[in-house]
């Protein structure tokens, strides 16, 4: 079927209008004022449905025995580890990890939110949320904008995280932060050497709830999937209480032995 010139032109305009970023249609003055890259689009920082920034402290009421102390070597209770993981679990040697410079193996993105400590969440830029941890002194960058392909990049403990807000429709308020992380170095789900591989993916949802006695609670529902060392998704949901300031911030380096 042949399309006429007018039809084609109209179709072009309609598709372009519908498909263009919303920012092309409605530029926000605040963006240019901030001088951010978001001059053509509302930034993630401007679009935030919930405020995650500030200091948060772990409140360890679950998995206490697996988080606050190092569990026994060989124990992987409640983790659906695969047969391929068992030799690694049984041969865990924290001193060897330390000697090899792998003392941060239990502080990777697959486990870091369960490590007892404090989070400091800030905006690194208008489209990157930054999470610093005092336990292990790790930094996670949650990017809201697509990056150039990094398939060739070397894996890191914290991997590469793509973030997305999920906000409820007005007039209601609130929502959630969805984060997917991959390209991680192989690490441990628990201090005692229960492994995840470089092929693992971590999916997280950050939600906020009001505490009954005042204050806020941050809940991070975390799903780790690993075709190598897990038979099923490993789901945990560590939570944090908000603190008024960083006075209790206490950076401590990674340790394999504690």
């Amino acid at each position, binding site marked *: 079927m042949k399309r006429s010139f007018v039809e084609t032109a109209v179709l072009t305009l309609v*598709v*372009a209008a519908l498909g263009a970023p919303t920012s092309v249609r409605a530029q926000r003055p605040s963006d240019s004022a901030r001088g951010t890259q978001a001059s053509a689009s509302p930034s*993630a920082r401007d679009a935030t449905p919930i405020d995650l920034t500030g200091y948060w402290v772990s409140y360890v*009421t679950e998995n206490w025995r697996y988080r606050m102390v190092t569990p026994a070597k060989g124990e992987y209770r409640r983790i659906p580890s695969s047969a391929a993981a068992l030799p690694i679990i049984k041969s865990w040697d924290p001193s060897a990890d330390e000697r090899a410079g792998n003392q941060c193996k239990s502080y990777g993105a697959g486990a870091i939110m369960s490590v007892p400590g404090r989070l400091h969440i800030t905006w690194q830029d208008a489209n990157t949320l930054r999470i610093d941890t005092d336990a292990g002194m790790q930094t996670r960058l949650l990017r809201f904008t697509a990056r150039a392909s990094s398939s060739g990049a070397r894996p890191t403990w914290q991997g590469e995280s793509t973030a997305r807000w*999920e*906000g409820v429709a007005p007039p209601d308020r609130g929502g959630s932060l969805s984060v997917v992380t991959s390209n991680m170095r192989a690490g441990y789900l628990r201090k005692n050497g229960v492994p995840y591989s470089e092929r693992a993916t971590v999916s997280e949802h950050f*939600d906020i709830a009001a505490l009954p006695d005042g204050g806020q609670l941050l809940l991070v529902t975390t799903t780790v999937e690993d075709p190598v060392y897990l038979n099923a998704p490993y789901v945990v949901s560590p939570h944090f209480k908000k603190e008024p300031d960083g006075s*209790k911030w206490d950076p401590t380096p990674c340790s394999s032995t504690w």
Partner: protein
Amino acid sequence: MLINLVVSRLAFTLSIVALVARAAFAQAGPAVLPSQFAFAGSWAPIGTEDVQNDSVPVDYLGLALTEEARTRALSYDESQKSMVERQCQGWGAAYMVLGPFGLRISSQSDPATNRIVSYTIDAWEDWMTMPIWMDGRPRPSEHALHTQAGFTTGRWEGGALVARTTHLKAGFIRKTGVPLSDQATIDWRFFRHGDVLTVLMMARDPVYLVEPEIISKGFRLSKNPLDYRDECVPGYEGREPGDGVPHFAPEQNPFLDEFITLYNLPREAVLGYRDTLYPEYRKKIKGTYVPPPPCTADCGVAGNFVRRRGPTP
């Protein structure tokens, strides 16, 4: 003809550019979620998180207890559950996240307005049916009947279901005898992300808890309806009517050291002291904690209950 061809190509190129640009920038804007999600259905427990530890008699890890709570918990003997009159007593509302069962949830609507009046979480064999009233009805008098399930109202807020339970009968917040009083209040948040439902429980108790007990547990949407309606039927378990209520003098609880020695755990953590819930405590015990010997039995995912290493008291 040539113009037509050029314009067509240009139109095609512009369309592609527009779509790519939209995809590139789409991350920054929030995805729009409905203010309510489908809550009714069958939700199977995921069970990869340890919310009640190993059901060892004296295990109060992860709790912030008052002295009175600790004393009462240490006096508890699980043999009480063998008494005919207590076998079907069941557990309170908190058992929704502490128990091993899934959630079968239904909704009830007003036939005239089609608005949802309540959600009902069905009973399990030792847990009562729990309605969540969504119709804005007032809370009953504080003198109204207190039950294991309590009285729960709910509302939608920020894409989550928010609920509060009061009118609880005095019971337990852990099966090992840690008490929860009839003055307790439980706040709930139900978050749904895809097929995962995260239930967040925040329990306050002015009598037995120094700080709220906060537990979150994951459930996965089940394609097959759950059927957990086994009725509790009491039977003879070795205790005769008129026998005394099994209990211990708190300081003479024979299980006091069992969990502590099994895993080399600090006593104050096992006995539910508040400071043990925060990261500072981990630093405090760094120099004294000795890891337990390597695990040799029940080390994996199925090992829900510990194998005791020594003779039971």
